[in-house]
């Protein structure tokens, strides 16, 4: 567990893949270890399960074909998640998934955190609210969707996200902040 000094928030220790440094990885081991996470990252970035399944298959085909040239000089997880990001970007462009603009972010949204004493109806409503939020993440611009997904669902640090997306850590922070700002505006519009 990690304790953040500023916010006093306890987070689970992020999963690292450093044990893959310096030795050739095995394809079936990689499937067992990464398929879940690749599928979730693709689902967050694409929104639809069928698209996420297609993306996951394409990612692992690229992983399989690229393994003979993988020298173990970098983190295998970084390599796989970078392939995932690139495959999702290509699929989004092919399917012309529309992202939203940032022109509505001055409006104040109102998101109520769930009441701990909620009953079944409230829990169901919360589940629907989270499903809707997951779909909205897929409507973010690709870099913001990827940063949000890797930070929250993947529990990656700024530095790890920076290596995966191939951008400086400062740009990771900007992508996260813009993503949250945009989601807040979208939720405001999306509310019945």
């Amino acid at each position, binding site marked *: 567990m990690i304790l953040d000094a500023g916010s006093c928030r306890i987070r689970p220790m992020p999963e690292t893949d450093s044990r893959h440094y310096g030795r050739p990885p095995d394809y079936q081991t990689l*499937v067992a270890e990464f398929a879940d996470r690749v599928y*979730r990252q693709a689902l967050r970035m694409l929104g639809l399960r069928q698209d996420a*399944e297609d993306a996951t*298959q394409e990612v692992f085909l690229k992983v399989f074909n690229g393994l003979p040239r993988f020298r173990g000089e970098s983190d295998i997880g970084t390599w796989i998640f970078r392939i995932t990001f690139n495959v999702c970007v290509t699929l989004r462009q092919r399917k012309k998934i529309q992202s939203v603009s940032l022109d509505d972010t001055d409006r104040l949204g109102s*998101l109520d955190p769930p009441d701990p004493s909620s009953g079944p109806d409230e829990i169901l409503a919360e589940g629907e609210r989270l499903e809707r939020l*997951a779909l909205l993440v897929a409507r973010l611009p690709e870099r913001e969707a990827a940063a949000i997904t890797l930070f*929250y669902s993947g529990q990656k640090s700024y530095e790890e996200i920076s290596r995966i997306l191939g951008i400086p850590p400062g740009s990771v922070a900007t992508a996260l902040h813009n993503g949250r700002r945009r989601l*807040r505006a979208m939720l405001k519009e999306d509310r019945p």
Partner: protein
Amino acid sequence: MTCEEFEELVQRSLDGSISRSDHARMDAHTQICPQCMELKRSLAALDHDLWNLPQPEIPMSLMKALEQIPASAPALGGSLSWKPELLRASLLAVGGLCLALFFDQLQTEWRALGQLVLGTGGFFLFSLSVLHPIFLPAASGSRGPR
């Protein structure tokens, strides 16, 4: 503190990267700015929801399809798995030809420079086809169905 600075600090606090003194400055600002208090509340709620997004399981049919990729990949047009073998065969053929010419030149007493070039080239190509990392068992051993 301006409202823009406040939003930047709220965002950084959600990333877990602000100091206790910044927290104190934010608290002081929210005492005098209700809009920023609302901003902080709504971003915190969004942050909570993002941490709690559903984590769907990968379908079993997809897992099986991924595990079958090594068996089906050679049939796919985009596969690169045949290339090392083809390259190795080409290198062996060219290297063998160079060495044959080298020995032929020894017999016909051609010039020493030609012998040196062909002999060195043949040796280099043979060595490359045997020692290059893409041909080593450790690199290719991870491929193929189990």
